[in-house]
């Protein structure tokens, strides 16, 4: 049977819708914020974007990122979760960086798979991990980058090294979290085994 409107088959539309819903949900309920210490938290809202991109392509990733951005903008205005949140009413902080999460994750995913195919190893788990890292880092770097671009000359101490250290301190753990979560979900969905191949139970 002829699938819907050529370019955008039903499955892509549905996955985009669902992943967007999850991203919005994680933000609205605060479940997407994993607290670390003293009010600092890492976020995993990039993960649905990454999973959407990895499973259905860069366009789906773009759409999910866009909707995530728009809703984080709305949320920043009506129900901010952290004191820094209200700044996200500015679309260059909330929407623009998020557009790139999906495509970045997808590019890394596809490249990693191609590379591993060349070496001859099954690269799916590694590709998923790398895609997760790439997507999350894109989010971190671009959001903080936007902060820098717009407000750099403004305050004397708001300099690139300062921003860079936040990227490392906050962004790397966030990337790691995104990587393991992406791997767990997509591997379970696609029925791929990876790593141990058996349970962690010890001998009796």
């Amino acid at each position, binding site marked *: 049977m002829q699938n819907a409107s050529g370019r955008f088959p039903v499955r892509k539309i549905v996955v985009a819708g669902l992943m967007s819903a999850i991203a919005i949900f994680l933000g609205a309920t605060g479940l997407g914020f994993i607290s670390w210490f003293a009010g600092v938290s890492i976020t995993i809202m990039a993960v649905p974007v990454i999973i959407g991109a990895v499973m259905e392509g860069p366009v789906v990733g773009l759409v999910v990122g866009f909707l995530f951005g728009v809703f984080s903008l709305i949320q920043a205005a009506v129900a901010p979760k952290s004191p820094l949140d209200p700044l996200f009413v500015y679309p260059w902080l909330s929407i623009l960086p998020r557009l790139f999460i999906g495509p970045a994750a997808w590019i890394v995913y596809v490249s990693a798979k191609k590379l591993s195919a060349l070496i001859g190893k099954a690269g799916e788990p590694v590709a998923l991990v790398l895609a997760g890292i790439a997507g999350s880092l894109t989010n971190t770097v671009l959001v903080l980058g936007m902060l820098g671009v717009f407000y750099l000359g403004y305050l004397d101490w708001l300099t690139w090294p300062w921003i860079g250290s936040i990227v490392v301190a906050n962004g790397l753990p966030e990337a790691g979290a995104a990587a393991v979560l992406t791997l*767990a979900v997509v*591997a*379970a*969905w696609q*029925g791929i*085994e990876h*790593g*141990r*191949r*058996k*349970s*962690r*139970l*010890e*001998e*009796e």
Partner: protein
Amino acid sequence: MSRPVIEIQDLSHVYMAGTPQAKTSLREVNLTVEEGAVLALIGPTGSGKSTLLQHMNGLYTPQSGSVIVLGRDLADRVTDLRRIRREVGLVFQNPEHQIFERYVGDEVAFGPRTAGLSGGELTRRVRWAMELAGLDFSLFKDRPTFALSGGERRKVGLAGVIALKPRILLLDEPTSGLDPQTHEELLCRMESLRGQGMTMVMATHDMDDVARLADRIVVLDGGRVVFGGTSREVFARREALGAHGLEVPVTVALMQRLRERGWDVPRAALSVEEAEEAVAAALTGSRRRPTG
């Protein structure tokens, strides 16, 4: 008469209280469960069965009224709810949806591991729970969870809760959506748990399951307890049950239809064997069995 392990008095509960979507899910419910008994909660969809179960293992603290589980008052701030949840296990409907681990062994081990078990002890506990649920330990412990059949997943869900070694087992629709074979297997498992003295409360729509397993029944509708009693007592009241949209087990229905036609059979039979004997007795015209 054994001691009560769950005592519920005047329990009321409003879901999403304070919002336009607020809904009263429980109204002044009174209920007692005795040690070693099997209680069935029956009622139409939305009658509050699940909410009631969720009060019994401390997922909710009572908004009004009291819930005392294993001697401990759930409304009391000092009560360790986590410990209550370990002693009162709740198997949710469709427990296969909770599976998040890669391998069956790890999935079943999740509960006891969080409770502090490790090493060989943990493995022994997992083996025990899996066997009780009907899963061969060596065969399944390293099986990936995505490669399980529906029935196997259901057993994994059950094993995950049993692994906590609860004293009371709560089950929400334990056999819904199962193929006949797994359904029967699960019933046998539950019967054997009952034989080992496990107190059980099950919310279900399956009247045949109730007939087979339950000693007592409580009927809920609109969040209220409408009536209760032993299985025989409750199933004898076919019209009353019908008024709440509930059926009776096949065997009971058979007995009642036969009685309508003048046959000398008891009002309720709770098993196929019982029904068989009753029909045989009626056919051979032997002494009328005492109404049960």
